[in-house]
């Protein structure tokens, strides 16, 4: 988040001052200066906590380098260790819930650095959030290949259609929920869009309120509604006391054409138990009302 400095604070940070730093560096590093002006870093006039701004907020004081031309006389963030680099970025980006939990997060614990996913100096128009790849999806799936594959399945979140991204659900910088979810739990994450399922119901189906992932795979499935297994097999994983074994129940099973019965086709068990997420009907104890 950008911020402005109060007048009583001493260090001068005007757009002109920031601009003059870029101009000075751009004398030699023209391409970098041009790209810098286009990205969010180049548009803010704010300094880091050391009072350094523009190029110097990441590269440190540049006077010695300008005088000598010595590469070693200036900080090159790309050569820093992941710890040093992350601290450098966090010296500005530590505020807000988006980044402040980075330290101790799963990605940080695996020694990833900000530059693993972000690229500061980009050719042409900068990508959104300065992602290292063309899009956020491309960046995430360059490591998480099986997630990329699962989104190609017939039942999927509308990510291929560009209605969602990974960060719609995950805060990859560290969150309070499992799997770096944006909300505190799987159910809260899902309810943040599917609010119709969040109400306390008279008749509850415990797996629903404990974890939507008991029945749904949000990354994609070949089964309708992102179900983790085909119906009725999915329900039978718990409700195997039923008198209905997993068989087609097809009266025409011996005929040339296969006709599944009502426990098998369409929504399987939910053809009758349609209110499986919970019911508020006084007679809804079996989720049929």
């Amino acid at each position, binding site marked *: *988040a950008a*911020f402005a400095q*109060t007048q009583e604070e001493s260090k001068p940070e005007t*757009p002109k001052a920031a*601009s003059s730093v870029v101009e000075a560096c751009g004398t030699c590093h023209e391409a970098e200066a041009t790209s810098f002006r286009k990205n969010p870093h180049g*548009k803010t006039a704010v300094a880091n906590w050391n009072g350094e701004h523009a190029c110097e907020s990441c590269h440190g004081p540049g006077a010695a380098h300008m005088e000598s031309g010595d590469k070693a006389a200036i900080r090159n963030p790309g050569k820093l260790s992941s710890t040093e680099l992350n601290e450098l970025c966090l010296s500005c980006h*530590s*505020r*807000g819930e988006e980044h402040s939990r980075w330290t101790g997060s799963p990605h940080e*614990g*695996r*020694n990833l650095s900000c530059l693993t996913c972000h690229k500061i100096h980009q050719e042409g128009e900068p990508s959104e959030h300065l992602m290292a790849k063309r899009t956020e999806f491309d960046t995430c799936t360059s*490591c998480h*290949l099986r997630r990329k*594959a699962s989104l*190609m*399945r017939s039942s999927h979140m*509308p990510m291929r*259609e*560009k209605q969602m991204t990974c960060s719609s659900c995950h805060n990859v910088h560290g969150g*309070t929920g499992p799997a770096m979810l944006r909300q505190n739990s799987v159910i*809260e994450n899902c309810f943040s869009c599917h*609010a*119709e399922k969040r109400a*306390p*119901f*008279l008749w*509850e189906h*415990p*797996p629903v*309120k*404990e974890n939507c992932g008991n029945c749904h795979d949000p990354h994609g499935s*070949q089964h*309708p509604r992102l179900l983790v297994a*085909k119906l009725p097999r999915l329900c*039978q994983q718990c409700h*195997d*006391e039923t*008198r209905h*074994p997993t*068989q087609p*129940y*097809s*009266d025409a*099973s011996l005929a040339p054409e296969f*006709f*599944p*019965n009502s426990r*098998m*086709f369409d*929504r399987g068990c939910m*053809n*009758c*138990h*349609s*209110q499986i997420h919970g019911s*508020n*009907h006084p*007679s809804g104890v079996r989720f049929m*009302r």
Partner: protein
Amino acid sequence: EEEAAAKTAQETGPVLAGEVLAGPQWYVQEDPNNSAKFNEYREVPNGFVLEFLSFSWLPRPGYYLDLSARDVSQLDQRIGFDLGKRDLWQFSFHWAENPRRWSDRARQLFTSQGGGDFTLNDTLQAAVQAAPPSADTAPADGQWDAGTKGALIKSAIETSAAAASVGWQREVGSFDASFTPTRHWTFDVGAQRERRSGTAPQSLGMYFALAPAELAAPLDFKTDQARVGGEYAAEHWNIGAQLMASEFETGTTAITWDDQLFLVDTPVNATTANPARGRMSPWSNSDLWGWKLYGGASFAGHSRINATYSQSTTTQDDPFLPTTINGLLLPIAGPLPAASLDGKYELNLGSITLASRPFSWLRYSAWFRDYNYDNKTPSLTFADYVATDYQFSMCGSANACGATTNRLQRRSLPFAYEKTDLGASAGFRPISWMDVIVAFDREKTDRNIAAVTSSDEDTVKVALDFDVNDWLTLRVTARRQERRADGYDAEYFLESFPIGEANIAAANEGERKYMWTDRDRDSGALMVEISPTPIFSVFAEATYAKEEFFDPITGKRIGESFTLTEDRNFDTIPENYTILLAGRIDDKITTYSVGGTVTPGARWSLYADYTWEDREYRMASRYRNVSGGIGTDDPLDDWGSDTTDRYDTANLGFDAGLTENKKWRLNGDFSWSRGTDLIHTHFVPGGAASGDTTLTEFPKVKTILSIAQVGLTYKARTNLDLLFRYWYEKWDEDNFASDFNLPYMGDPGNDPGSREAIYLGLDFLDYTNQILGFMVRFHSP
């Protein structure tokens, strides 16, 4: 100096910039027309499209106004409007919408009267009520005899069912503002309204005696959210607070429909009557409000501590519908215990994390987290219930619940749980190119209504990362999880039956629900990236996870049997009972991915990847009406099923500058994904479990999606690109659960339970689409 001065002048003066991508596109092959699957979440018009638009205006230094839009005027358009003064304040307005379509070919016999009320033609209802049962005897020609119930309903569907649009449109508008008066303070406020309107498929459970039905139920959801927050940040610490509120409203709290079998409520006996109408409660309004405090502090040794506490309360108090709509049963139903639920649950989270890197070769972290789903909804006892508007549930056995004239009572059991997590992790870098992580975590779960009220899960993780050289990275992770419960109460739900169950039912007392069993889970992952030269890179990933489920009481694996010695017939001599542990036996998920990129020069790049994924689930069970009596061990009573899901996915892409000056550029993306599902069922034909004399296997399910997109770009001027695009997409599915779905499903020889049923016939038809596009991109230099 002059150049620098010019640039500075440019920055201080008004600046306009923008980009437009638009042009016509045509379907050169569309089979079938306007496939709902192709347009499931989007709109791909045949004609002119304004695919992207951006406009940026900087009226004076620091001030900005940005507008961006995608797929303008389409059902999946997105529009964003941002303005502000950099580093001080900003406003954002965003609009997004998308469709959700369910089927290509749904047809509906019901007529919507509005407000969730659906009717059938009275003449049809009366005729069906008076008609004889469905029969195929005169002649036995595979069709219901004329004038029978099934024949009348089938005929009505074929002649009168109207095409039904099953789908809805989602629209989201949001506003956000932030104000940063000083470098220490940030304040933000935001609001969002989401609307979903249209229809969704709704099945109408009608119990065994009556015919099932399905209709396109009205969907009219509105969710409003608002939040306000503030944060104070210093160089080494920050603290913030947020308030939030949300309201969910549904335009439909009840769906009422005509029963195709009866025009008027018709008595059967004192506690059973065929209803002329059914009614259900599909959605409930709810409110949510909450608050959150969070903060963190950094200190010496590259250390940081973060803490969060949040609490939210969700309530629901919609008036209850009457016990039943059945006019013959309602007058004799017991009074409701309350007019509404007054339901409320709180979600409380407290978490604290400490992480430190005191030395370059050592790091550690520790965490504590408590998440509490605290359900404050009252437990209500209902004197009786009519599950399908047809019949009071009655006591079936004097030994179980008293007189058989007793109606079963039910008590609601508000489910709640608390998860407490405590763990630590340490990382070492003994040598410069190797990193080792060891972590331990214990999660304790307490539940108040469950077969298992307390369980612990321990997780041990070891990870090795090798950065052997710039060209080789290897990451290995192994994890072992053990979940152990304090026991298993298979009859935990009995407190929902104040006078007892209908019968002391024959049941497999070895049944274990996998969520609550003991579980061992072993998983591992291996990732490799090899980049021998700057122009070539290969990466691969393999993951493995296996879960095995165990009985918390005996420690035996699910699927095995154990012998129980008890005196159940009260003859003072204990008998032996063989109990099968039923449920999920084990799961195994394996994935392999391999990919590579080649970038031989600035003009060329190529990438490809392939992923295989196998999922295998096994389960075993035993018929509950065991032929030899409870505790007997007869293979004729056993059944089980194994399922295997397999997925193959391939991607290939390239980008090529055809000329040295990159005036001509060709790019392409190709992807192919195939999924298959096979359920293998096993029981002894003729055994008690199936009642089926044949071991019929399920047909294989298969879905294949193939996409090819190729684009040719000509850079006509520095601010003008011409694009020619070709898009091929094919979807092919074999799925017995939907391929046979028709509005009428009850022909003789088909499912007897569906002979008087009315369905929508939901299915997506396979499609092959080819689309050509000629686009113009005009942008500021």
